[in-house]
């Protein structure tokens, strides 16, 4: 009887357009990878713009990058890497159906994500204070730092667009992870299907990966 009820619960979580749970799970994972492909192309365009200007203004970019705090950026890298680790653990615990452990790992991931955003906003605040946000009040003191003010504008434009877009992805990640936690906590059946967690995991690792590229490209430019 209990076995029958279990079988039913699996069947209930299969949507009508799928024949089997396996087919549904494979399709969801494939869909997630396809979505990540679009994300790669989207960030890819920005990385292309970065490459073009860095190639053209190599020396200037070194001067500008000194305005960025590599220690805060490094700390954020550590924070994000640990969140990725706990995310991987969450997927693992969900696969072996350990609900409490899954929830704790997701909570830790979320905590790290908040930490990342907090550190990022400190950095942004600094930039605004020094008029380095490239709007009308943008000031680049070439006499003091050297470098071409116009190129400085491009550098900080790209910096804000790329890290900003990444930050928005972190924010969306927090929302998605929170939703996932609520669903797992409320819906006892979801613990039998780890695919949603795996999908969120893929997304989160992607967000992490983007930062792994952003950090050296902005904070660690060699002379």
């Amino acid at each position, binding site marked *: 009887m209990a076995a029958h009820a279990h079988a039913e619960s699996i069947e209930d979580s299969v*949507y*009508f*357009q*799928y*024949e089997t749970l396996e*087919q549904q799970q*494979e*399709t969801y994972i*494939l*869909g997630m990878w*396809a*979505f990540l*492909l*679009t*994300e790669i*192309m*989207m*960030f*890819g*365009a*920005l990385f*292309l*713009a970065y490459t*073009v*200007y860095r190639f053209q203004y190599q020396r200037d970019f070194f001067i500008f990058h000194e305005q960025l705090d590599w220690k805060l950026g490094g700390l954020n890298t550590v924070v994000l890497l640990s969140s990725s680790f706990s995310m991987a653990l969450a997927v693992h615990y969900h696969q072996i159906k350990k609900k409490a452990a899954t929830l704790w790992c997701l909570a830790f991931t979320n905590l790290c994500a908040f930490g990342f955003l907090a550190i990022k906003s400190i950095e942004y605040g600094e930039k605004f204070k020094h008029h380095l946000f*490239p*709007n*009308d009040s943008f000031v680049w003191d070439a006499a003091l730092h050297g470098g*071409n003010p*116009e*190129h400085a*504008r*491009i550098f900080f*434009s*790209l910096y*804000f*667009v790329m890290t900003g*877009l990444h930050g928005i992805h972190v924010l969306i990640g927090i929302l998605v992870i929170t939703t996932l936690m609520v669903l797992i906590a409320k819906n006892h059946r979801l613990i039998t299907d780890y695919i949603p967690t795996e999908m969120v995991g893929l997304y989160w690792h992607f967000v992490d990966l983007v930062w792994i590229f952003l950090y050296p490209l902005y904070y660690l430019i060699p002379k």
Partner: protein
Amino acid sequence: MSTTLQEQIASPERGVKKNYLNADHTIASWLLTTDHKRIAVLYLVSISIMFFIGSIAAAFVRFELTSPYGQWLTSEQYNKMFTAHGVVMIFFFLIPSVPAVLGNFVLPMAIGARDLAFPRLNLLSWYFFVIAAVLMLATLAMGGIDTGWTFYTPLSSLYSDTQVTMALVAAFIAGFSSIFTGLNFVATVHKMRAPGMTWFRMPLFVWGSYATSLVILLGTPVVAITLLLVLFERVFKIGIFSPELGGDPVLFQHMFWFYSHPAVYIMILPAMGVVSELFACFSRRRVFGYEFVAFSSLGIASLGFLVWGHHMFLSSQSVFQGVVFSLLSFMVAIPSAVKAFNWTVTLYKGSVHLTTPMIYALAFLGLFLIGGLTGLYLASMDTDVHLTGTYFIVAHFHYVMVGGGILGFLGGLHFWWPKMFGRMYSEFWGRLSALIVFVGFNFTFFPQFMLGYLGMPRRYHLYAFAPEWQFYNVLSTAGATVLGVGFLLPAFYLTASLVKGKKAGPNPWGAKGLEWENADSPPITENFERIPIVTGQVYDYDAEEDSRLIRAELDDHERRDKAHLPGEH
């Protein structure tokens, strides 16, 4: 779900048969539907409205050009008109036309699935489309934009004082609408095929849609982020593309055309898939070189990403770059030619039926050929220097986009209409309007090749310096009027068919394919009563059998006539 199916099987003839249209009649059941067939109908209605609006803008453009002196519109108004025409037609009609209407409806059925992989995402795609369309119409109502559909910087980012910001937001959202569709198609084709439906048993329409979806997934995000950067540049004065702010406007062109050349294939590849179905069905033959046609779709999709520089021969590109892009552009003609040759050979020894869809398919073949071959003039650098920015370009891409894209869409719409709504339209009016479209189209756009060759620049609303161009312009406008009539007619007879058309039955064309052979017209919400198992090859037509049947029918008529003759005397 299984109970509803059993009910249907148990009592199929309780008054009217259940299908996806009469399953529920409330407005909410339409607006919240996740049924791919209903979403296709929603898309059909929405893009028809957008097509109508885009046509009105085109009418203003054509009317203005009947006089060399720019009498009716100011330059500003004219700029807004052609921009409205381009933006609405490209982002809100051509890109969603075949995939979101015909693909949505047919693709899951053609591979034997009950729905797309992600039905809710599909509905979300339609809502994104509607939001984007409403925003774009609001943009036009609030004064419009004058940048052209290409949004070139720095005009779009720093100088234009029209509603560019809002238009960019609209285009950005529309991009996500098509990304969702593409994502859905890719997942569906990979994972939702019925048992026995191998890759090489898929209809070529599915291949075309699959290739298109890959292009959408890889290209659209790039243009989305590019337009977003232009938006930031306008709003925050961030400098990435504008020379005043230290940026590089040519970078914008690279990023824009990286998407917008492949976007041409988003518009034409699915239409090529449609006409492959039409040629097979109405020649009663398997498409000649099926595998080649299938792979040529993927070939076009991948080569199409490597040719964007042919839009920039005159934009500070080095000669070496130009030569490479020119060569690659020539190469992309090869897979297109593979298709054209194979379609032609399919006709040979086929049993050709000149139905409305087939007339559209044949028109497609002829017009796409002209459109494609004139593309070679533009792909070679030296002729391009003379022809770029002239009406030659305008004529070329209309031959591809209208002669290819829209005619493919109309052919497919007439082909699957009986499946979508269960009714036949008037074949007489169908054929007549197909002919009107063909004639009107050529009168509209062939003179524009002449104008381009004579050097008339595009986007000018007066040509008082060369009044001798007026003859061709008047010819073109007259043709456009005929074309407009041809496009308007289907709106009437197709709508009329919903009420008065005779019942189509499951397979009025005697076509092969799961949607025809295994489903009712209109299909039930679950598409099939049970998932079909595919055992045969695709396009299992028999032209000889078909012509034997026709001959037998003719003999039968003759015999009856002879039998009647003595009695009458």
